[in-house]
């Protein structure tokens, strides 16, 4: 594993390019966990709070967020080079290219085996249904989207017990691929499994799985990067028959990562929600017992599911449209026969560990101290203007007040209070100015006619 990090520190694939970032606050305002602050003129992500949803990257007008990835040349260290990708990958390509042409380009790139992660999705669905017999919590919540799993861990601790203890399709595909290759005589240490990720969340999850000891995948590939490479290599005509690689793919499998992909298959009383801000609103209600009885909840961080993943190219709605057409050409999962004796073995490997809550929003382990801090936050809030302007480098007044009691910010960080203090001659102008520089960086005050902010860029 190349990107693999040690387990004590939360790994995130999303990084800020401090050369490009100019502290415009768009990301800070949109982050669902209030994980971003502006320090020294650039966005800084709180490692504990970030759930890898990628909304900051989407909101950035300066293209300052990037996703870490493995170097593709690493595949050459393996005799059997397996590429695993979710079906949405195919959905990005215009209809003028057949799936066969795309598959050929992947072989041309150096891969020896190709598996879409959703084959054989039937095993995973079976396994999820098994779990519903073992666990009495309702609704069960899908473990598919890693951003949602992490969101629940930190924001909705009471709901962690509802999360299905099963791994994701890429784990299924990886184990399935290994068993298939072994059947053909390959040795396990000669197999390199490379997963093409649609998002930062899956990247982080593959590198540091939440509910398993270690990941089965050898390396992670950025889907955007792969798309560009394939576009260069794609042949004008299909030259060979690659359909054998797709023989276990089913209609339901292709739709799995789209909205209702899982819930439509699970049936019973199930519901699907996409878009992390929609999910947040729903989970609030669920936690309050304000929703009717539901058996299964499918939650996806991106609107339009993985078709809206941050590493996809093109328009998410077009991708969904293409995938729906593609799915209609494939047989139903029940009709796909998988002649592989390893089913029980693979199913066993899909069982994940229990997901534990992470109490990152706790103010203090000592309760009386925590209450004191809460009181202080309320007192501070009385003083702040309540504009949520972000001029302090925090997403809103409340967040600044919380930062203050944690010792990470001070009253004068609020630009309004600072002005008031200046008038009351409680702070010196030099000191006030320095403080602003500390948050917004020195360059913020240099005249620059080419700066990116202030011109509605990115809209």
């Amino acid at each position, binding site marked *: 594993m190349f990107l693999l990090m040690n387990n004590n520190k939360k790994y995130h694939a999303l990084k800020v390019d401090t050369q490009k970032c100019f502290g415009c606050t768009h990301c800070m305002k949109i982050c669902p966990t209030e994980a971003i602050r502006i320090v020294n003129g650039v966005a800084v992500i709180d490692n504990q709070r970030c759930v890898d949803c990628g909304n900051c990257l989407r909101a950035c007008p300066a293209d300052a967020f990037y996703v870490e990835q493995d170097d593709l040349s690493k595949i050459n260290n393996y005799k059997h080079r397996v590429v695993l990708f979710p079906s949405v990958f195919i959905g990005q390509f215009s209809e003028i290219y057949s799936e066969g042409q795309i598959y050929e380009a992947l072989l041309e790139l150096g891969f020896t085996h190709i598996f879409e992660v959703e084959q054989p999705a039937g095993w995973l669905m079976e396994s999820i249904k098994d779990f519903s017999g073992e666990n009495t919590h309702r609704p069960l919540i899908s473990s598919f989207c890693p951003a949602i799993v992490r969101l629940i861990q930190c924001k909705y*601790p*009471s709901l962690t017990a509802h999360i299905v203890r099963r791994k994701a399709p890429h784990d299924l595909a990886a184990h399935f691929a290994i068993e298939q290759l072994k059947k053909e005589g390959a040795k396990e240490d000669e197999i390199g499994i490379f997963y093409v990720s649609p998002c930062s969340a899956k990247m982080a999850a593959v590198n540091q799985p939440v509910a398993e000891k270690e990941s089965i995948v050898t390396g992670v590939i950025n889907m955007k990067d792969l798309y560009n490479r394939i576009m260069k290599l794609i042949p004008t005509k299909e030259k060979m028959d690659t359909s054998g690689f797709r023989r276990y793919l089913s209609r339901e499998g292709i739709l799995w990562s789209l909205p209702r992909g899982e819930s439509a298959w699970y049936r019973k009383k199930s519901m699907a929600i996409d878009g992390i801000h929609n999910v947040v609103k729903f989970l*609030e*209600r669920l*936690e*309050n*017992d*304000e929703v*009717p009885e539901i058996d299964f909840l499918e939650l996806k961080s991106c609107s339009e599911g993985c078709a809206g993943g941050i590493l996809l190219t093109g328009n998410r709605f077009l991708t969904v449209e293409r995938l729906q057409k593609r799915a209609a050409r494939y047989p139903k999962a029940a009709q796909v026969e998988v002649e592989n004796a390893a089913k029980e073995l693979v199913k066993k490997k899909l069982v994940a560990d229990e997901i534990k*809550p992470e*109490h990152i*929003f*706790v*103010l203090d*382990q000592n*309760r*009386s101290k*925590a*209450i*004191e801090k*809460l*009181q202080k936050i*309320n007192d501070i809030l009385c003083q702040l203007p309540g504009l949520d302007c972000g001029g302090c480098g925090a997403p809103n007044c409340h967040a600044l007040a919380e930062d203050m009691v944690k010792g990470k910010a001070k009253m004068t960080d609020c630009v309004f209070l600072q002005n008031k203090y200046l008038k009351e001659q409680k702070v010196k102008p030099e000191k006030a100015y320095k403080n602003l520089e500390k948050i917004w960086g020195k360059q913020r005050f240099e005249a620059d006619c080419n700066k990116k902010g202030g011109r509605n860029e990115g809209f």
Partner: protein
Amino acid sequence: MAIELNFTIEGGDFSNAGKASSKIKKVLKQLNIEAKIIKKIVVAVYEAEVNVAAHAYSGNVKALVGENDVVVMVSDSGPGIENVELAMKEGYSTASKEVREMGFGAGMGLANIKRNTDELKIETKVGEGTTVTFSLNYS
């Protein structure tokens, strides 16, 4: 030491019922109160909020979040409750047809509050209003 949280509720305003319980929930999470306990309080507060929206003209929620327990007082000006014993019965409801059509008024609210709290006190005066007070210990 306890922290005081205050909210107002308007009669008929179902879309805002749930705001007080959500805010109280956030505070309890910051105090690291056990999830099971949080859930009980939140359910109780929500039911009390809905009762103001469904049966009264206006009201307010006052929560005292302390080190060992939380005490919640929901007072309203409204019609009051004629027979508290009857109102406590599961399934008993005077909710209007409109309220029931919105999915409320199953007659489980007060019983639900009782089930989820350690102490429940209902003071009411017909024609004036109702104050529902309940508390729950964390341990």
